[in-house]
């Protein structure tokens, strides 16, 4: 059994300067209560790995608006003008990564691989400074694994043990990120007894999950 943790206590474990994997895609499948709590506790100088910068007032954008992010690894920031502004002004460092590469770098980090080889980015600015590897006459970029201190994961259901089930497009990066951090904190939509999630429906096995954020006040909170 895994003891639930309050949202406030979960975020208190995260020090200033920590690196965080943040699930979600345009705020869908993002751990919105944990994000709100990071804002409330004003955790600073964070390094964040997240698919995108969200849109103003939603998702990761909340942390960017309060300038809590020092460095962001993302694939797309186009719907967040404040993020682009902070990048151009140099207030926040942003590294843009092709989305498929980003997913595989995180997977490599969580699956114990020394990196991945992909043809994506060959012949573009993405290849700058990276090692090229030829396999059977085809060129690939060596992309290194990514890991973080914490992964903040949004799931549909968690059981008492910590098995996680995801819903539709809210799954996105949560599943790979839950493998690629030293401490994994899951914010489920609902918590159910062990056995309610069928074994075949478990997206993240309980052994990867360290903490489950206790039930929220609102059944359907999605950060809006």
């Amino acid at each position, binding site marked *: 059994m895994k003891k639930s943790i309050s949202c406030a206590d979960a975020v208190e474990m995260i020090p200033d300067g920590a690196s965080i994997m943040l699930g979600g*895609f*345009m*705020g*869908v*499948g993002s751990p919105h209560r944990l994000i709100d709590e990071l804002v409330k506790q004003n955790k600073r100088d964070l390094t964040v790995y997240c*698919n*995108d910068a969200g*849109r103003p007032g939603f998702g990761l954008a909340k942390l960017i608006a309060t300038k809590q992010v020092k460095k962001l690894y*993302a*694939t*797309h*920031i*186009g*719907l967040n003008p404040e993020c*682009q502004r902070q*990048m*151009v002004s140099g207030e926040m460092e942003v590294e*843009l990564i*092709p*989305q*498929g*590469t*980003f*997913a*595989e770098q995180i*997977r490599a980090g969580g699956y114990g691989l020394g990196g991945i080889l*992909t*043809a*994506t*980015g*060959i*012949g*573009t*600015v*993405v290849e700058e400074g990276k090692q090229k590897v030829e396999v059977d006459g085809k060129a690939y970029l060596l992309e290194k694994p990514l890991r973080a201190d914490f992964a903040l994961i949004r799931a*549909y259901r968690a059981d008492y043990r910590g098995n996680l089930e*995801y*819903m*539709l*497009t*809210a*799954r*996105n*990066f*949560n*599943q*790979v990120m839950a493998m690629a951090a030293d401490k994994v904190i899951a914010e489920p939509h609902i918590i159910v007894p062990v056995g309610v999630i069928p074994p075949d429906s478990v*997206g993240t096995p309980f052994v990867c999950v360290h903490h489950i954020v206790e039930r929220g006040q609102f059944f*359907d909170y*999605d950060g809006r």
Partner: protein
Amino acid sequence: MMDDKVVIAKRVALELEDGTLVNLGIGLPTTVPKYLPAGIEVYFQSENGIIGMAANPEEGMENLALTDAGGGFVAAIPGACSLDSSLSFGLIRGGHLALTVLGGMQVDEQGLLANWMIPGKMVPGMGGAMDIVNGAKRVIVAMTHTAKGKSKILKKCTLPLTSARRVSLVVTDLAVIEPTDEGLVLREVAPGVTVEQVIAATEAKLIVPDVVPVMPISEEEVVAA
């Protein structure tokens, strides 16, 4: 006269093959399904994690966890399946995606595409575009032929490239152009457009075959979805 974007979407719709997996970029490409020929069924992938995406759900029936890559609410067809990001891009890179249709800023004589950033002005990030252009079996660029009076089909792209891979086809409001080993071949012109007009609106050199047919699209309004 048909709207420029309708011409493009209608022509692109003819390229979709029955029973295949298709990924549509944001903007104009998302209007292509409206013009699918009767009897053609394709499966739309949205790279944020679904195969079988369908158009907008009925109002009030939206699911907060069923969205497209822009975060907008969508529906799903029976038999749809959800994917995590790794699987989603595995499908894309692994040769399981038959076709992508995406917008373009520039295409050049080598058939190379630039569509993800304007240095110093607009740096949205590449999102999934680089993986998709690299991995899809066919890549169709759907874009207006010119922007602010300037050709978007250039001798050489001036913007950062999306991929070193040549795209399969370029469909614009004026023409259908196929990049080949020899260069850009003018395959079709839009209804009411002459070959000379296309050449005049194109900075890149075009190879013009003896016969250049008109796009086989109907001028009728499409009513049914």
